[in-house]
């Protein structure tokens, strides 16, 4: 059992998101603790990705708040939230397809660097130094996910499983405190899924991260989660350690998703 400080990293209170007549998320209270791997599960259409989109600033909630590391981030813009330390990946991988793997990861370093217009035009020493640091940091991340050999390949030419890892590398490049992964094992074969799980465990330990993920693959959920929250129809219907959720009759009733 990993050491979770039980310090709350992310908390949503009465989070409500509506789209016209449809209430996608209803009064959600979610808590993620430092060092934890927390899973958000539920049938399709339960509102999980919407929660992610609100937490990462793509949507603004109608009601409720989102607090990150003690600060209110409700309604902030996505790039501000990344600066604060939340990074995400997408359900349908959203890389920069016509840029190289290297450039994709370098993008993650944008929010941690400062060279602006003047620096770019006049090629100051500070800018060159910063560029070097960016390249080195990007190369480290690529090595970390095993993509260093393909660093000059265009992202769209890289194999699917490795594209997933590339997206994670890009997210990690932003030096987040909380990593939010939307169905990271989707489309991966069992071997790749095992590697992914090991990878997540490793980075939690090495980089003192917290991870929140949406998953349909029960092996992943049971295998690495410290805490599971279950949603259905926009509401939270259960939460607790994985074993407890597995046997919860409400959850079973709400269709737990495919047991692979």
């Amino acid at each position, binding site marked *: 059992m990993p050491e979770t400080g039980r310090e709350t990293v992310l908390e949503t209170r009465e989070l409500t998101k509506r789209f016209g007549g449809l209430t996608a998320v209803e009064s959600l209270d979610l808590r993620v603790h430092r060092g934890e791997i927390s899973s958000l599960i539920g049938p399709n259409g339960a509102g999980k*990705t919407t929660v992610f*989109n609100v937490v990462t600033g*793509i949507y603004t909630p109608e009601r409720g708040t989102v607090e990150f590391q003690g600060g209110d981030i409700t309604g902030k813009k996505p790039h501000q939230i990344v600066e604060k330390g939340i990074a995400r990946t*997408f359900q349908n991988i959203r890389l920069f397809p016509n840029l190289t793997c290297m450039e994709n990861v370098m993008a993650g370093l944008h929010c941690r660097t400062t060279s602006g217009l003047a620096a770019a035009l006049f090629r100051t020493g500070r800018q060159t130094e910063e560029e070097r640091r960016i390249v080195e940091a990007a190369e480290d991340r690529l090595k970390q996910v095993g993509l260093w050999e393909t660093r000059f390949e265009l992202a769209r030419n890289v194999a699917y499983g490795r594209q997933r890892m590339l997206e994670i590398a890009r997210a990690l490049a932003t030096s987040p405190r909380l990593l939010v992964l939307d169905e990271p094992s989707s489309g991966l074969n069992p071997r790749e899924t095992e590697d992914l799980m090991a990878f997540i465990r490793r980075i939690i330990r090495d980089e003192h991260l917290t991870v929140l993920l949406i998953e349909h693959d029960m092996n992943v959920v049971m295998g690495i989660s410290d805490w599971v929250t279950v949603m259905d129809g926009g509401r939270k219907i259960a939460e607790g350690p994985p074993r407890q959720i597995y046997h919860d009759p409400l959850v079973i009733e709400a269709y737990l998703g495919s047991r692979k």
Partner: protein
Amino acid sequence: MRVVLEQLINGLTIGSFYGLIALGYSMVYGVLKLINFAHGDFFALGSYIGYTLLVFASAFVTTRVGLWGGLVVTVAVAALCLAVVGVLVERVAYRPIYPAGRLPAVVSALGASIILQNLIMIIWGPRYQAYPAALIPNFKVQLGGLTLTALQILILGISLVLMVVLYFVIQRTTWGAAVRATALDRDTASLMGINFNRVIRFIFTLGPALGALTGVMVGMYYRQISFTMGWNYGLKAFTATILGGIGNIPGAMFGGLILGVLEMFGSAYISTPWKDVFVFLILIIVLILRPNGLFGEKIAEKV
């Protein structure tokens, strides 16, 4: 009050022109995401073909079918020609470019527009041409205290009928459903059995044919036509398309009507030189307030 109503009628007349042209833009734009710059020139070509028929063949035609019959034949021939031209242009200039993406298609459309516009200039000359007055109905009508020209009534009537019919076709027939479905999601539509090529042929015959009809009407209404008219009307019609919302085909018709009315009131109450500025400003304000067009587009983006 009477003046306002007459201005409204004027505006609706112009708006019908924009709306009917906009329809052609909207269909192509919705399905192919292509700004068919050549569409305005289809309209112009139709107008010029109508001109040629009326000037050179009128004697021949009117003796057999009368004045009105002559106009009908003119419109029919012009529409038919443009239906052919439309399919041809799509085949030669657009179809080979689809795989390359949207932006190359824009350049190709510009090229097609240049070709058409300059061919018109070469064939018919750079100066204004005039529809023969003798063949155009010219009498005025009193309608409830308003003075309207027969031409206005004719145009408004035809446009109204056309728009109703087209609305019906787009919204309620299988053909229309096929077009709308392809505009929403081309791959799924073809998986559902919709023949993409047929849809293309449909929109590239209906659109240009409508444009030709509108071209003849414009020729009759303003009498003067020039080879640059495609560009002028095309821009307004494209504005109407966007105003109504991308992919919203009926919306384009309404967008055109609204644009025409706005233009007329802008010209009457602000000042004629600034009327176009007024219209564009309204467009920009509308888009700031309703980024998906007046009637909303039919496409949502899932994150």
